[in-house]
């Protein structure tokens, strides 16, 4: 749709081939691009679920008619309907009525929301140096402005405390970063964003980094995680069955915080340093994952004993996602591995840095080349794939084709530093967790959390309350 929009804006008419199940999302995306009547040509059913004969018959007898019509018949140029300003009261009522209003207008996730009153919104706006009407950018697919005001309103609704506002602002700045690819948030794999927080602010605002670090139940971790999904819904515009076409989807994730005390003790750099910031810099890092799994009780007192199970755990989270390594978006797979402090200490005791552990995983987590080619060429039919050709063209690193042996073992990422490692969770357990990354459909992006000048006063006031 974005390609078609670029052509139309260049004065060249387009016909966009769109499968039956994608029509509503295509219309929503077109609206967000400001082209309400972008011309769609229907492809009945889904292209990958049809025999060649059926598909050809559908294309020649149905799609072709639309293509000719789209290119030769004048299309409407309707302006978007005028929308009400958002700095006006939209509803008055009791708690249940307010919640009913938001839910029936598709503005909430189904859980009760905190009513965004002027008093509550103002409390959030006090803890940011930005004006309430400041706009950080326009969010696809809905094409709405990501304003400071909207961040505050959604923060209130999610149940956040006002002092989380600097984090929420940084998150929206990250959401707008083109490297992250928020426009892909409604695609069929249905990945969900994991937010990682680093720096002194994590401790100041009591983010959990111990037991149940991925579980709800901790105010800061839970409500900031919920804010992300509400903002995706209300401002970016991802609505289930409309612009959000997740086949199965995932629920929003609570914020992950690293155990920075342990990292300091063992001399490993925290995630914010790996993302290019200093250790004392407060940051958020976002990336999308389609799933993940825990490996419990990883036995071993040395890296050599641990690596087979750890590598197998990493491999278990990479299937079709290998397309982000050697397929259409090469070199963009960044699996995230969570190590408990107990696990990290074993590596550190053996003299391994965080980077050394990444190198070990890079060397041990490998798949037969024929399996990768089968995944992409035969099982998902995503296009035309041949590892040898890509290496010859120079679009893949040489280590993916060091021989013609189809059983040769190749890595699942381009380089060791593509792996991300975070140290968190129960300090004493020997477990690991591996997230299945979504490649360019949620590439890791880090942003600094800008604090207001009176931040120390804000923190003192929280300490006084607690």
């Amino acid at each position, binding site marked *: 749709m974005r*390609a078609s929009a670029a052509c139309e804006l260049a004065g060249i008419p387009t*016909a966009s081939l769109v499968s039956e199940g994608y029509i509503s999302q295509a219309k929503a995306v077109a609206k967000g691009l400001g082209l309400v009547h972008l011309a769609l040509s229907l*492809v009945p059913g889904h292209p990958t679920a049809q025999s060649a004969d059926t598909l050809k018959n559908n294309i020649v007898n149905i799609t072709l008619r639309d*293509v000719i019509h789209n290119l*030769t018949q004048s299309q409407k140029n309707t*302006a978007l309907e005028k929308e009400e300003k958002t700095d006006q009261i939209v509803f008055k009522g009791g708690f249940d009525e307010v919640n009913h209003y938001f839910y029936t207008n598709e503005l909430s996730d189904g859980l009760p929301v905190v*009513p965004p009153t002027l008093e509550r919104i103002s409390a959030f706006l006090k803890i940011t140096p930005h004006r309430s009407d400041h706009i950080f950018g326009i969010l696809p697919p809905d094409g*709405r402005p990501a304003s400071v005001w909207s961040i505050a309103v959604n923060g209130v609704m999610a149940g956040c405390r006002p002092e989380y506002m600097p984090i929420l602002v940084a998150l929206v700045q990250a959401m707008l970063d083109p490297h992250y690819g928020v426009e892909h948030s409604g695609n069929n794999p249905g990945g969900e964003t994991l937010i990682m927080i680093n720096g002194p602010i994590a401790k100041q605002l009591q983010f959990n980094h111990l037991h149940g670090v991925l579980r709800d139940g901790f105010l800061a971790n839970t409500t900031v995680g919920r804010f992300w999904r509400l903002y995706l819904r209300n401002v970016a515009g991802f609505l289930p069955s409309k612009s959000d076409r997740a086949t199965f989807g995932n629920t929003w994730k609570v914020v992950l915080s690293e155990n920075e005390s342990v990292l300091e003790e063992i001399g490993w750099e925290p995630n914010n340093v790996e993302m290019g910031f200093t250790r004392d810099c407060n940051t958020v890092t976002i990336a999308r994952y389609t799933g993940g799994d825990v490996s419990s009780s990883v036995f071993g007192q040395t890296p050599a004993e641990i690596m087979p199970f750890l590598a197998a755990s990493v491999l278990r989270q990479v299937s079709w996602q290998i397309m982000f390594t050697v397929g259409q978006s090469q070199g963009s797979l960044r699996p995230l591995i969570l190590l408990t402090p107990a696990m990290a200490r074993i590596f550190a005791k053996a003299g391994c840095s965080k980077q050394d552990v990444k190198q070990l995983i890079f060397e041990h987590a490998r798949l037969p080349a024929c399996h990768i080619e089968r995944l992409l060429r035969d099982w998902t039919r995503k296009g035309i794939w041949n590892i040898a050709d890509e290496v010859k063209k120079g679009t893949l690193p040489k280590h993916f084709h060091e021989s013609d042996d189809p059983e040769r073992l190749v890595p699942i990422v381009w380089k060791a530093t593509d792996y991300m490692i975070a140290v968190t969770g129960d300090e004493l357990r020997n477990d690991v967790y591996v997230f299945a990354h979504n490649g360019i459909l949620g590439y890791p992006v880090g942003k600094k959390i800008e604090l207001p000048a009176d931040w120390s006063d804000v923190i003192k006031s929280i300490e006084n309350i607690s």
Partner: protein
Amino acid sequence: MDPEIHIIMMKKNTMHPFYEVYSPQPARLKSHTKNLATRLPTLVGKTLAHVWDYQYRGNEIFPWIEEALKQQFPGIRFIHWKEFGSTHSNNERQVIENLSKKLKEFEVDAVISGIGA
């Protein structure tokens, strides 16, 4: 009950607080609306480009469309999708940014783009 009276009563009821709330959804900016390109009077003798996201069997679908259009519109010619690169890859922003320039280079009159699925 008169809505105004209902509001006054709700405001006085401390057991069931009354709220005046704002929308979490910012209004789209007026400048956001854009116009579609003018359509062609005919496809006879025109140059069409296939623009592909390298997904969902476009390599099979585009040739079928091309073959059928050639039968209906004499002089029609096509620019292959390979000339533009994938519109859904880690280079997609660059590919889309370069589209306008490339389409002009190839003197393209219209584009068939896909596959949204």
